[in-house]
């Protein structure tokens, strides 16, 4: 509580001591109410986690951790709850999405921060805003109508012809639905977030440093590569991790294009069944089979824990960066 007391002491500084008693009372009452309201976000995280733990407890109680996390078989009717295909499916889709998103995002944010004129920046911002505003289900429709056929008609034949011998790129699946389609859709969905965070991070580099390099005759790219990027590397990594955590939890859009077959993926053309899709697809019958609801809420819990870790780490790094400016 000492942290809180300290803050309260700070709040009651000299400036906030008003002249009339009634106004002082209002001020103090408002302070207390306001203060309690700020507890909401902090408490909310705890409540969400607790509720999921409580609801998932039955399954954590009946099976060992390794049975759940590393079990391969998912047959709720027979009481078999192996999460491994779903966990691997999530990792595959997220990894492909992030790998596809990072290079263009990095290039775009560096361009916007280092090269572009203000005019281009004012055009770019609404584009990113709109990309961020498009609802997941619309991304899903787009994926279904454009990306799945694109994978099927263009990427799969290409890969079959040239890259089929590389294990991760073997074409296994003749419909276009799968990890690659999910990854492409995810990449576009997380792009605005990654771009704007990296842009913010780049803007924290003082111009003096850039000028110091330019003054000895470095080209702009030499300046960026040798001075700017090394300075902000942790921030860039944090931005990517933040994007990855967004991708981990994305549900509807991925669900619509990824195929939803619980298997251990071996190629980007395989179908997969990520955790969020598992939860969303089965909420209907989860109350009718024993432990099913606990298993699905357990899946949500796994997702929450991984995302919380990703999020807290990246946010701490970014806060340090952005506060410095």
């Amino acid at each position, binding site marked *: 509580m000492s942290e809180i007391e300290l803050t309260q002491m700070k709040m009651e500084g000299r400036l906030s001591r008003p002249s009339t008693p009634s106004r002082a009372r209002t001020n103090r009452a408002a302070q207390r109410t306001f203060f309690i309201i700020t507890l909401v976000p902090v408490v909310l995280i705890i409540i969400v986690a607790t509720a999921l733990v409580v609801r998932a407890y039955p399954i954590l109680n009946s099976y060992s951790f390794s049975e759940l996390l590393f079990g391969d078989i998912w047959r709720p009717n027979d009481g078999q709850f192996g999460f491994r295909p779903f966990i691997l499916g999530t990792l595959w889709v997220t990894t492909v999405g992030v790998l596809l998103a990072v290079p263009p995002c990095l290039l775009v944010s560096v361009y916007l921060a280092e090269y572009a*004129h*203000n005019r281009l920046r004012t055009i770019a911002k609404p584009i990113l805003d709109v990309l961020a505003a498009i609802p997941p289900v619309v991304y899903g429709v787009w994926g279904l109508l454009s990306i799945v056929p694109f994978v099927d008609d263009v990427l799969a034949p290409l890969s079959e012809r040239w890259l089929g011998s590389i294990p991760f790129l073997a074409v296994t699946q003749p419909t276009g639905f799968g990890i690659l389609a999910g990854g492409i859709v995810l990449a576009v969905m997380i792009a605005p977030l990654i771009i704007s965070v990296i842009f913010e991070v780049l803007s924290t580099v003082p111009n*003096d*440093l850039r*000028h*110091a*390099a*330019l*003054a*000895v*005759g*470095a*080209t702009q790219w*030499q300046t960026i590569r*040798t*001075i700017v990027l*090394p*300075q902000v590397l942790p921030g860039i990594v944090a931005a990517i991790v933040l994007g990855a955590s967004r991708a981990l939890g994305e549900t509807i859009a991925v669900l619509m294009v990824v195929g939803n077959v619980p298997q251990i993926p071996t190629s980007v053309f395989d179908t997969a069944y990520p955790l969020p899709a598992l939860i969303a697809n089965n909420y209907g019958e989860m109350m009718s089979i024993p432990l099913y609801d606990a298993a699905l809420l357990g899946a949500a819990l796994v997702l929450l824990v991984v995302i919380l870790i990703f999020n807290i780490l990246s946010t701490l790094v970014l806060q340090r960066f952005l506060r410095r400016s």
Partner: protein
Amino acid sequence: MNNTHIQVNNLNAYYGKQHALKDINIEIPKNQITVIMGPSGCGKTTLLKTFNRFFELTEDVKLTGEVLVDGENIYDPAVDVTEVRKVVGLLAQRPSPLPMSIYDNVVYGMRIHQMKKERAEYKKSVRHYLEIAGLWEEVQKRMHDPATSLSIGQQQRLCLARGLAVEPEIILGDEPTSALDPISSQNIESRLIELKKDYTIVIVTHTLRQAKRLADHVIYMYLGEVAEAGPAHDVFNNPKHERTKQYLEGLF
């Protein structure tokens, strides 16, 4: 005429709609210290920045006219800015050590321009330029410490060494001592006086006393125009313009 190192012809510069430099025509002599002075906001720094093409780093700027270095217009479209900046070095107002070691700071420009082939050559040059900047004695035992661990005055001498290492012919100084303590300032000033036998030096300053200590040649600016320019003793002892006179008397 062959003594002129930088020649400015009909130079006009604009920040957006603001006319910052108005029809500048000056000549800057070789191997001398030229001091640009004038009240704040008169365009001193802007003029200086046109000499190494730093002016264009600000957005929404426009420039007409020419700046000739050794008779070659550095604003010609075919010109390589980085070559210009290699020949025309800059000592910034605040020391700006790069976030790397002392050694790497000095080597930075040489590596960028791939000026040496072997490690040993780089090492030799680093020592050479740190000696010229009067910093060698103080840092020779801590070459791989971060440059930010130096004092502000040392940092500025490090920046001088870093600038000299790419073998420029002209050194620009944008109030290079204004962030420093008096002893460090004096140290920098004496370096500059030593350096003028090999380099052409152009300094912007807002302190009249510093101008009098350093200047061989003076450019006095007022509201974006060159009010007076000439050899230092002429301008200081016998100013032709009323504005210059008032400034020298300390009226503003």
